[in-house]
């Protein structure tokens, strides 16, 4: 069953690999062209992703939860909306660069609505993109599209928040019913052992829950769960 599950989880990767294999057999020159096309995106990723990961981790550790709730939480209202637009607009890189950042912010209390605003403005109306647009399509075109897009994002972020609840997002699931550690995901960084030595231990290259242990200190456990880079503890 676990093999099947693994296959399902990596379905997209498998399809891509297969597509390349077929391409290289049937039309090798098109296969080469595809690899060449990918090179640009790899460069783009290498320029932005390392810094996004570092920034996300730093914010994760230093940004106080109450600040996130105040500025991006459910009660933040119009202030939260404006703040989210600004955050998304001053970004750089493709939309997937926004994913780790948004997951972290949501964990700290940002609302679904503001998450959608950050993601969407990161995708279509970030300032570097607007500058490019004005250059090729004119200032008027850019300005009108910007206004319309902002209005659209305000509307559909509101709709999304009506449909999607916090509990629909994977990391928001509360871990009250027993503790589990996904050893397939664990990468053996031992952060959880450092946080909660009474609860976790290393077994070979991966962490495990100490047999027969009881989660005592909730706060320490929560820290360990948050520290886990692959979120394997739930």
């Amino acid at each position, binding site marked *: 069953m676990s093999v099947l599950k693994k296959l399902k989880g990596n379905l997209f990767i498998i399809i891509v690999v297969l597509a390349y294999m077929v391409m290289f057999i049937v039309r090798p020159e098109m296969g080469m062209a595809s690899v060449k096309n*990918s090179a640009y995106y790899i460069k783009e990723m290498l320029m932005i992703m390392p810094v996004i990961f570092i920034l996300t981790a730093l914010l994760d550790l230093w940004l106080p939860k109450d600040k996130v709730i105040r500025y991006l939480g459910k009660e933040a209202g119009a202030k939260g909306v404006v703040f989210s637009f600004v955050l998304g607009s001053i970004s750089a890189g493709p939309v997937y660069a926004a*994913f780790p950042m948004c997951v972290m912010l949501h964990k700290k209390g940002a609302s679904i609505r503001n998450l959608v605003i950050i993601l969407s403005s990161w995708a*279509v109306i970030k300032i570097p993109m607007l500058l490019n647009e004005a250059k*090729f*399509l004119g200032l008027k075109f850019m300005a*009108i599209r910007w206004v319309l897009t902002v209005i*659209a994002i305000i509307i559909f972020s509101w709709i999304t928040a009506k449909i999607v609840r916090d509990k629909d997002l994977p990391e928001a699931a509360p871990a009250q019913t027993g503790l589990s550690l996904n050893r397939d995901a664990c*990468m053996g960084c031992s952060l959880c052992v450092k946080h909660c030595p009474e609860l976790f231990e290393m077994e070979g290259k991966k962490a495990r829950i100490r047999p027969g242990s009881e989660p005592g200190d909730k706060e320490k456990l929560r820290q360990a769960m948050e520290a886990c*880079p692959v979120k394997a503890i739930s």
Partner: protein
Amino acid sequence: MDVFTMAIWAGTLIFLLISLAKDREKTKKALRMAFGMGRGMVVSILSIIFAIGLILTVLPPEEIARFVSGQSVLAATLVAALIGTITLVPGFIAFPLVGTLVGAGVSVVPAVAFLTTLTMVGVVTFPLEKKEFGVKFTAVRNGLSFVFAIIIALVMGVII
């Protein structure tokens, strides 16, 4: 590297130095976390990138433009929006392309639909987004983005 990427690098490095001065252990932990995040995402991101490379070869933007310019506005808008959904093209290719299209007399409606779905809706990024945010969030966000991309395009067609 554009100014914004550089600014983010500079800001993050300063943040990192301040963090290091304040709390060495915490900073080390942050770096380990960053590394872990990268490891968790790298395979997904690479598969997205190679998928885009493949799609761009099979469906080059110039082909799309030629195809779209031969259709009626409504059909062109739908096709442009759909194709924009599948691919993910950087601004510096997309904008000049759309610029020439509009310059050549093609309606702005399909052009705008293409531009918006190109970046906001992602079929190739769907698996990764699903992993990070869950199926429901991803489906609703992408679905609504698609619908609104077409609305934005239609309204723009009326205004311009």
